[in-house]
């Protein structure tokens, strides 16, 4: 990830300082494996953690993830954006 540059606000929100993990995942199967596979997020994340998913594309899959993660006391949100090239041209992404 040496090429990644993030412009973060100053000061950082306190909850952002605690613990964050970023995964670059292409599609739903990879999200599923990352969440529920061996050493997955579901088992490893602390109870009450928030998972924000920008990769899963089907409504039914997102809702299923939310249901499964509730059993681990984790919250789940779907977060979509207008992808390349629309997002950049509409200045939706920073």
């Amino acid at each position: 990830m040496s090429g990644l540059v993030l412009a973060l606000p100053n000061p950082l929100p306190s909850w952002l300082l605690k613990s964050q993990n970023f995964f670059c995942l292409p599609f739903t199967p990879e999200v599923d494996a990352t969440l529920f596979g061996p050493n997955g997020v579901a088992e490893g994340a602390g109870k009450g953690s928030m998972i924000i998913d920008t990769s899963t594309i089907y409504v039914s899959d997102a809702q299923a993830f939310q249901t499964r993660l509730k059993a681990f006391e984790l919250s789940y949100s779907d977060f979509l954006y207008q992808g390349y090239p629309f997002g950049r041209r509409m200045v939706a992404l920073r």
Partner: protein
Amino acid sequence: MMFGSTLSEFQQAKPYLNIMGRSIFYCGDCGKGQLIKAFNNVVCDINLAAISEIMPLAMESGLDPNLLGQLFTTGSSRSFAFEHFVPHIIERTFTGDYSLQGALKDIINFQQATSEFNDNTPMFDVMVNTYQKAINMGFSEESKSAMLTSL
């Protein structure tokens, strides 16, 4: 950017989301982010299906394609879909843009919603027919504006 979850989770996440983008919308509970994105994109796709039908007829009628392009991007029919795609259509450039295959997810999400509520969506159905023709002709990796080539 479209967020789907509880409102309290949205409020908790908002400072972080603000880092990522400027236009962030709370859309309702889980899955609503995907759903509203699909609805938005389907409207764009219907625009493209419309231009795919109108453009060849207009040119057959002897109208100047560049003049058509100016009108479609400044007149009452103007939309983001037209502003973005019409210049490429006039140049007949159907590569290097959002692919037809990539639009399938929106169609599936939209179809799931229509089947859940048993709604009648004739314009969506026509768009899917045009879209499917372009896919069947081998344009799945080309731009969504390649719907034009299917007519």
